[in-house]
């Protein structure tokens, strides 16, 4: 029998390509995946590698329909990226049922490698715990001991709020309240007003993408930052900083698993990526590249694209590329690697375009991520 089913390896990139998270991953992630395939040589075990992609519009039902169709009728072997936790959870469950590999780079919830982990599911770029430790920790350290959360009303938001709260509380702070807003809200004014009248020192934005950008903008409009309250953009990346502009974003503290201007290796990828997409990569783009690359390597190592074997290889192989230094994959599917605490530069400070961050510190992987043994994943004994 053929080592590679159907004579080719087909990877599906399923993500938000037109919605609030389109900049966060979007079409550029597809590009990153293609770069990985090209860099790998275009074939694995002498079989061609193909990338397909689709827009799931942040709707879990649409995503799982597409995934189902990919698996059932289009011989897709693995699905990656999966922006938005609700989507990622749905597709991971389906992939598990269909015995297919999924590698999540876009979504954040720790449930992917916790309660809802899958033997064939991997979580690559970051997660809510890493964000809580990074950004949450940094603000608590600066004296932000009372928090109010603005939370995106779905799995991701809950997870981020919960983990940040835990972190705040364990550091001796308290949470004075929270309010949930639907995904893709354009007017945050009344939520912000609530946050303002709560008197909390830190307003934790447990949302992402444009929602965060809008909240930040409107907070400035309502004089909230000027009034002495601090904003914690718990999930904010280079892409959103670019969209919002340094003027408005300056001084924000954030956590990413990658920054293009970190060193030679990361700059090299950044430049190539920029040439193809017109923008610098964030951790999702870089993470997607890394995930595709690692998946192909695993096939090569396993000598087949059969799911069990590849999953085994993925669990065993160390990850070491421009994205993940000292990366390793836990039994729960979590790829553990170092994260970076970053701060947005002031408008004058940038030396070149897209040079937005100062690196405040490196968060070692074992600190950033939950110990697989304590993750609540049933696969970890």
């Amino acid at each position, binding site marked *: 029998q053929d080592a590679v089913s159907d004579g080719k390896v087909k990877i599906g990139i399923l993500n938000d390509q037109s919605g*609030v998270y389109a900049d966060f991953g979007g079409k550029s992630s597809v590009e990153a995946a293609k770069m990985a395939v090209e860099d790998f040589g275009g074939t694995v075990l002498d079989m061609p590698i193909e990338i397909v992609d689709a827009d799931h519009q942040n709707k879990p039902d649409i995503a799982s329909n597409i995934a189902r169709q990919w698996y059932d009728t289009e011989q897709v072997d693995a699905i990656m990226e999966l922006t938005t936790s609700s989507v990622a959870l749905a597709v991971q469950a389906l992939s598990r049922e269909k015995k297919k590999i999924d590698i999540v780079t876009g979504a954040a919830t720790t449930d992917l490698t916790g309660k809802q982990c899958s033997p064939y599911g991997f979580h690559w770029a970051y997660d809510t715990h890493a964000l809580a430790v990074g950004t949450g920790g940094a603000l608590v350290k600066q004296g932000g001991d009372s928090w109010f959360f603005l939370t995106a009303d779905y799995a991701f938001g809950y997870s981020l709020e919960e983990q940040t709260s835990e972190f705040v509380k364990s550091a001796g702070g308290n949470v004075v309240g929270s309010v949930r807003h639907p995904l893709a809200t354009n007017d945050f004014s009344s939520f912000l007003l609530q946050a303002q009248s709560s008197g909390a020192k830190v307003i934790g934005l447990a949302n992402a993408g444009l929602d965060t950008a809008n909240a930040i903008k409107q907070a400035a409009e309502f004089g909230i930052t000027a009034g002495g309250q601090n904003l914690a953009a718990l999930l904010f990346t280079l892409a959103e900083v670019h969209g919002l502009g340094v003027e408005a974003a300056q001084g924000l503290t954030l956590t990413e698993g990658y920054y293009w201007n970190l060193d030679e290796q990361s700059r090299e990828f950044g430049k190539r990526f920029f040439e193809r997409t017109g923008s610098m990569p964030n951790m999702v783009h870089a993470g997607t590249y890394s995930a595709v690359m690692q998946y192909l390597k695993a096939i090569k190592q396993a000598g087949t694209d059969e799911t069990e074997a590849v999953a085994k290889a993925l669990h065993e192989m160390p990850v070491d590329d421009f994205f993940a230094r000292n990366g390793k994959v836990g039994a729960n599917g979590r790829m553990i690697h170092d994260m970076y605490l970053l701060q947005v530069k002031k408008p004058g400070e940038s030396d070149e375009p897209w040079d937005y961050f100062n690196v405040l510190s490196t968060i070692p992987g074992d600190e950033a991520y939950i110990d697989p043994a304590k993750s609540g994943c049933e696969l970890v004994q």
Partner: protein
Amino acid sequence: MTMIFGIPIQAFLGQLLIGLINGSFYALLSLGLAVIFGLLRVINFAHGAQYMLGAFVALLLLQYFGINYWLALIVAPVIVGVLGAIIERTMLSRLYKLDHLYGLLFTFGLALTIEGTFRYLYGAAGQPYSVPSALAGGTNLGFMFLPIYRGWVVVISLIACIGTWLLIEKTKLGSYLRAATENAVLVQAFGVNVPLLLTFTYGFGAALAAFAGVLAAPIYQVSPLMGSNLIIVVFAVVVVGGMGSIMGAIITGYMLGITEGLTKVFYPEASNIVIFVIMAIVLLIRPAGLFGRDA
């Protein structure tokens, strides 16, 4: 902190003001709908899309021609109005003879097409449009920090509403419009070009929506779907107000905006649905709506 009904007065007044701002948009949009419905008997489902178009045109004018906010506030509505007029002339006008439902369905399709196109071209994500520098910043009202721009929105929308009201109540054109609302055929028999009037009306209604869109751009970002959910709320506003009067549309718009704002203080979970609940109650008590004339 001073409390009112167990709520800090600051939060109370703040939400009240935000409600007023939302109410301004409801009023402007339901006014446009009322004008169009009054004469054409068409429920303009594309109103939300035209609102979005207004914002987008302003954005594109800025990006490609460097036309600033102030100019866009006039140019964008004109462009959208002309577009609306063309659509009325070439397509919508064929449907007047039919059941009014077809007008609704047509404009629904139009809305999907416009929104779909912009979504295709610009993605569903919003794009920033900055507050004009003259209106940047804010002022501390004591109970809250009021962004000047939002204050401006309240004022200008009130002016636009009153202006429209005056246009319709106090001018010759307005008297044609009102008369045609009552009996279009007779007005036409008197030698008034009612088809042209209809075209103008639709264009004007669309322009009003676009005007609201430009006003909204700096607040809500410019996004292809900015109007699609709003329009449904505005429908509810219109049902509550009743289709009879222009003034009714305006007053109900502000009133419901404020009600919604207050709900956010007292029972935030219900703030999304309070307008619909009010609509249901009004329908049960007064099927013609608060200011409606037909029963």
